[in-house]
């Protein structure tokens, strides 16, 4: 069974990396370009609130992160700690849910 799940995880991590390779430069460049009146929550909220294009962008970004990071941490747990089995996978899934929840909450609050 693990041959199928390992192959799927490998593919999911590569595919999400492809998405992140596009999202991360856009994210970083936008931060540097857009911050004109100081980096404060009010300033950002005022500037981007209600922008549905950015909402779509960050929904994709957040989901890609939530897929990519836990798979990588799972691999690190396996290789560095020798941690295998169900407990490792449960923690990875919980971490994915945490990332998705935090990211979606932030994106929806800011852009919607």
């Amino acid at each position: 069974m693990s041959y199928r799940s390992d192959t799927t995880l490998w593919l999911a991590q590569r595919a999400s990396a492809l998405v992140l390779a596009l999202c991360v430069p856009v994210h970083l460049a936008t931060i540097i370009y857009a911050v004109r009146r100081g980096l404060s929550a009010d300033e950002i909220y005022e500037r981007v609130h209600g922008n549905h294009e950015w909402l779509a962008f960050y929904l994709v970004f957040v989901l890609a992160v939530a897929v990519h990071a836990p798979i990588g941490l799972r691999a690190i747990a396996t290789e560095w700690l020798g941690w295998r089995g169900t407990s490792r996978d449960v923690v990875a899934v919980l971490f994915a849910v945490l990332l998705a929840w935090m990211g979606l909450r932030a994106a929806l609050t800011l852009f919607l």
Partner: protein
Amino acid sequence: MSATLKVKVWRGAAQGEFQTFEVPRHASQTVLDVVMHIQRALDPTLAYRYACRVGMCGSCAMTVNGAPRWTCRTHVDKVALKNEMSIAPLRNLPVIRDLATDMSEFFDKWAKAKGRFSGERSRRDDFARVAPGSERRKAADAGIECIGCGVCYAACDVVAWHRDYLGPAALNRAWTLVNDERDRETLERLRAVAGDAGCHACHTHMSCTQRCPKQLSPTASIAGLKRALVKAAMEGEL
């Protein structure tokens, strides 16, 4: 060329130490020549392994100045630093004694990776005809010249930290068979090489490809296995 070479040679097994020998230099001298000189003229108790002396059998690989090499095809001129050289057994394998390693686990992993051809024709059938120019034949040809010397296995850092990892040679062998259109166990083989003891553990350091004395690329073979697994998974065969 200085008249003598100072050679540090590993003595012992897992525990041991380097012993220094002075060996006369000769033109076109190989590292294996040096080891043979030590065993025949200086210390007959030195344990090491070789057979063909010409790069065909894959039994004389050792760690020379920190890197795994065939000793028979490595000239002293190419590796000696200021007339000094160190010779140790291959990394990642249990040492039996001195320069001889136990290669059992290395070959057991070929079996685990289903490295054995499994066809369906008998001696009464005609030859299978495989087009030399077909993509699969070319992919198999690219990795087929492996002679199982263990140099890639010793060079691989993933093998060093993950004892169950099948290693570059076994995975390269699996890839040649995946591309053998006469073989009938492709799916079982792909299942055997998936996962964190198989091709998905490879970090693409490419030490195997850098060190392979046959200039093969196990890294490319491992990447091919990953692609073949994704294809099989997407087609619902896995």
